[in-house]
């Protein structure tokens, strides 16, 4: 079968997209109120996400410097719970962790004064009381990211596809200089145009995600600057093509610019950020969680890699279509 890779691409894309949208997040404690406590009786409201708190069998505790204090957990519904307990005096750390069964919210509570440690009681989590049977395959549930973690399977593969297409474009540019062939030049510009489509898609998915997690559509981030420069370079490439009339001269000038720009782009995207020691706000950079700590059991990777391959194959397919269409267009014009 000649076009097996197109079916493979569509299959991977469908699998990755459906899995990315349908897979639930793992249960987590997402909010605790109030956020500071003082020694004495306290009532702490805990909000869970995708949790299944069960009346009568849920254990709640506070943990400070490795020492635990139990409370009585009153379950309101599957995701709401009220923890009543006596906050002990003499906590060693300012930050106290709230735990419900197997789930923990690290550093949920703040205490003003410090002491030399508290008496530990023997309590929870005894057995795993959360029902994970229905949600065996889940995505990590991390604060700030939450549901937006699904964007990993759309936004990031789009950039991979774009870089791949720009790579195709530059390879055809090199061949144009060697052969002086207008066919190669056409392939080069088609790849760059499809790459720009992916650039726009990556920008849009990124901006929407950034609004949800960082609170702004655009920030001064290394990766965002890299994206902006990439877009500008290839728009400039198209402007350069538009301003030369002679086809062979256009092919050569555009090819030269494409090669020069691509090398500088690679330097800008992959070398300058390391040299400048600027950290990105993106997950996986600058102390933000990435694959290595968010995804301890490779659940994200199982969807992410098929998504990358799927988007790249879709991009290549779009490139071949675009190339054929512009070839037909040229013949019709003549």
């Amino acid at each position, binding site marked *: 079968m000649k076009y097996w890779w197109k079916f493979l691409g569509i299959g991977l894309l469908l699998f990755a997209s459906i899995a990315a949208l349908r897979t639930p997040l793992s249960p987590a404690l997402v909010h605790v109120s109030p956020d500071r406590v003082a020694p004495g009786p306290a009532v702490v409201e805990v909000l869970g996400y995708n949790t299944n708190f069960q009346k009568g069998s849920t254990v709640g505790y506070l943990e400070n410097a490795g020492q635990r204090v139990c409370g009585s957990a009153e379950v309101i519904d599957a995701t709401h719970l009220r923890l009543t307990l006596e906050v002990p005096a003499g906590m060693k750390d300012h930050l106290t962790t709230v735990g419900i069964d197997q789930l923990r919210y690290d550093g949920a509570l703040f205490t003003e004064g410090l002491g030399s440690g508290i008496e530990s009681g023997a309590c929870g989590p005894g057995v795993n009381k959360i029902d994970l049977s229905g949600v065996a395959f889940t995505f990590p549930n991390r604060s700030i990211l939450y549901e937006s973690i699904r964007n990993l399977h759309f936004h990031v593969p789009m950039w991979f596809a774009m870089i791949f297409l720009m790579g195709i474009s530059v390879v055809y540019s090199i061949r144009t200089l060697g052969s002086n062939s207008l066919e190669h030049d056409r392939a080069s510009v088609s790849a760059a145009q499809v790459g720009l489509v992916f650039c726009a898609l990556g920008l849009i998915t990124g901006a929407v995600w950034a609004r949800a997690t960082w609170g702004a559509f655009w920030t001064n981030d290394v990766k965002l600057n890299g994206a902006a420069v990439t877009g500008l370079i290839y728009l*400039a490439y198209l402007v350069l093509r538009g301003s030369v009339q002679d086809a062979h001269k256009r092919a050569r000038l555009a090819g*030269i610019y494409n090669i020069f720009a691509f090398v500088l782009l690679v330097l800008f995207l992959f070398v*300058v950020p390391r040299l400048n020691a600027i950290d990105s706000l993106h997950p996986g950079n600058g102390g933000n969680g990435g694959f290595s700590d968010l995804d301890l059991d490779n659940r994200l990777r199982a969807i992410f890699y098929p998504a990358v391959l799927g988007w790249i194959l879709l991009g290549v397919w779009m490139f071949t279509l675009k190339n054929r269409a512009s070839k037909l267009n040229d013949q019709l014009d003549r």
Partner: protein
Amino acid sequence: MAVARPTCVRPYAGSAHSYLRTVKFAEITHLVRLEVALDLRQRATWAGMLLYVVSAVYVCFLAVKSGLGTATWNALFWIILLFAAFNALARSFQREDGGRQLYLYTLVDPRSVILARAFYNAVTMVVLSLLSLAVYLLLLGSSNLDNADMGQFLFAVVLGGIGFASVLTLISAIAARAGNGIGLMAILGFPLVLPLLLLVMRASKLALDGVAWSVISTYFGGIVLLDLITITLAWILFPYLWRD
């Protein structure tokens, strides 16, 4: 002028050690001297570049008066220098109308032309950068240099000037060949100059803060590396640009 030779068609031909031999220093020296002679004959070119810088600095002076913070002072200086570089280097291939280009084409290796032009542009940019710095200091005050390591700062300015020249020489050639002068050059050049600009601005900010050489040398190394890569690329690609 050097001996006429058939123009290069395949720049990669020959074994690896022939690369250095293909750099024809005699031709390059001749071409640089030609540039100097032409510029001495048309002094208005240099006067124009200087006037551009002085006007730009004066506009900034009117807009901000004085009392800039170090970061803003540094940013403003590099923005002025960036525009001065575009203005100065855009004319670098403008002289090449059909006749003169054909004449050069029959006489010398195109790679000598790009190397000579890049070298001459680098010298131009270094002189222009230092003159801009003098005017800038005169008008906007030098209080921001109090903590600076002047050696580092001047080195950053010189490296920045050379860097602009090395990135923009090929771009200026492309824009001139496309027959659409400075407008096209700005569009093509701005995104490509950004990596260099970020490095050099960071380096000169560090120099203004007076950090140790061990901290700043990474940036200087990066700028030199960037210069070498862009010059090499220009050297490889320029013969294709010249072929018609």
